[in-house]
């Protein structure tokens, strides 16, 4: 068992839930409200220094009774130690956790992906929008267990909505690396970018 768990218990008390060991990795459950404090403490306390956020992901189990879990993989590069932190969320309840982007800049796209696939909102995220599906995608969150494999709309409707999307509208100016070339863009594209328009969510026919 990772010694950080006992230190966490001593510092945060009841905010730390159960801890278990799996395949040599320690998993510790943290209450939703304490997450940001716990993560900041784990990153900044000298004897722990989990300075590297390996991954942010989420799990929904087939057992409907089990809660959704947001999973954070932490690593201390200096100490060569790993810790996995999980936050449990009730599937029917409020799917919101605090963003860790202020602690690790690299969490930006990871949290966007979790939002895109599971619909979990990260409070305090600077730019929380879909990343894998296009932004006007209206069928829901594909990796949730109540999401039908082939999507909610008919294939024809899916094709219609996909074809109605602007290819350029998937990206922000920075992602297109055209911020400096803005003046040379075609007028219609310039207009779309200026309005910040990413297309409207189409209504099913």
């Amino acid at each position: 068992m990772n010694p950080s768990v006992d230190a966490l218990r001593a510092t945060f008390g009841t905010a730390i839930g159960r801890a278990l060991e799996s395949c040599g990795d320690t998993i510790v459950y943290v209450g939703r409200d304490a997450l940001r404090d716990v993560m900041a403490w784990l990153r900044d306390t000298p004897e722990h220094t989990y300075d590297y956020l390996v991954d942010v992901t989420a799990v929904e189990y087939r057992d409907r009774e089990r809660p959704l879990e947001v999973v954070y993989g932490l690593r201390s590069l200096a100490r060569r130690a790993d810790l996995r932190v999980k936050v449990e969320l009730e599937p029917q309840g409020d799917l919101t956790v605090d963003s860790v982007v202020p602690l690790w800049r690299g969490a930006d796209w990871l949290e966007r992906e979790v939002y895109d696939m599971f619909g979990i909102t990260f409070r305090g995220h600077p730019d929380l929008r879909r990343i894998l599906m296009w932004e006007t995608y209206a069928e829901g969150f594909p990796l949730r267990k109540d999401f039908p494999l082939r999507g909610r709309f008919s294939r024809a409707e899916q094709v219609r909505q996909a074809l109605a999307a602007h290819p350029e509208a998937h990206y922000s100016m920075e992602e297109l690396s055209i911020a400096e070339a803005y003046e040379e863009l075609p007028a219609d594209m310039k207009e779309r970018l200026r309005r910040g328009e990413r297309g409207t969510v189409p209504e099913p026919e």
Partner: protein
Amino acid sequence: MKRVIETKETSGQSPNYLLAKVQDLVDWAVNSSRANSLWPMPFGTACCAIEFMATAASRYDFARFGMERQAFSPRQADVLICAGRLPFKLAPVIRRIYDQMPQPKWVISMGACASTGGIFDNYAMVQGIDTIVPVDVYVPGCPPRPEGLLYGVLLLHKKIKGESLFDRVPRREEQPLDDRGLRLPPGEIDEISEPFGNSVHQFRSA
């Protein structure tokens, strides 16, 4: 020669023997030129693109069949080769590339995923690129071997050589999207997107 042209204008449907020979000669010249110098526009999204590259490289070398120059710009391409699965997010992209290609143009759908969606019968994948753009040749396989793609290219040659400038059938019309924004009627898209094989045992609803 003047009389021949007059005959075509006046008789309409049935040209005389000499005119037919002239038309055959023109068709032969035009179609041979087109078929034997196809410039492919590769649209490679997955493992089929690896086989496509093998087909283009020295061992199989589709330059032997006139595809010497690969056009990585749709505006200088004759045949769009979709090699790999096409997610819905790329659907407007391939449609725009197709629209940017000048006439005459053809499309080869390479592999199971491009042709039918393949094993990816899910929310994210187009179930056959023929719901987006018209397809001339479907090459089966997962992925097809280079010989398979070459056979598809030769079939396309055959198809091109069978076309005629004079039979008034608009073979290569633009096929624009209709006012719903679709290429085919919705019922037809639903029908060709139906699951098949093992995936019929999965259900749309939760």
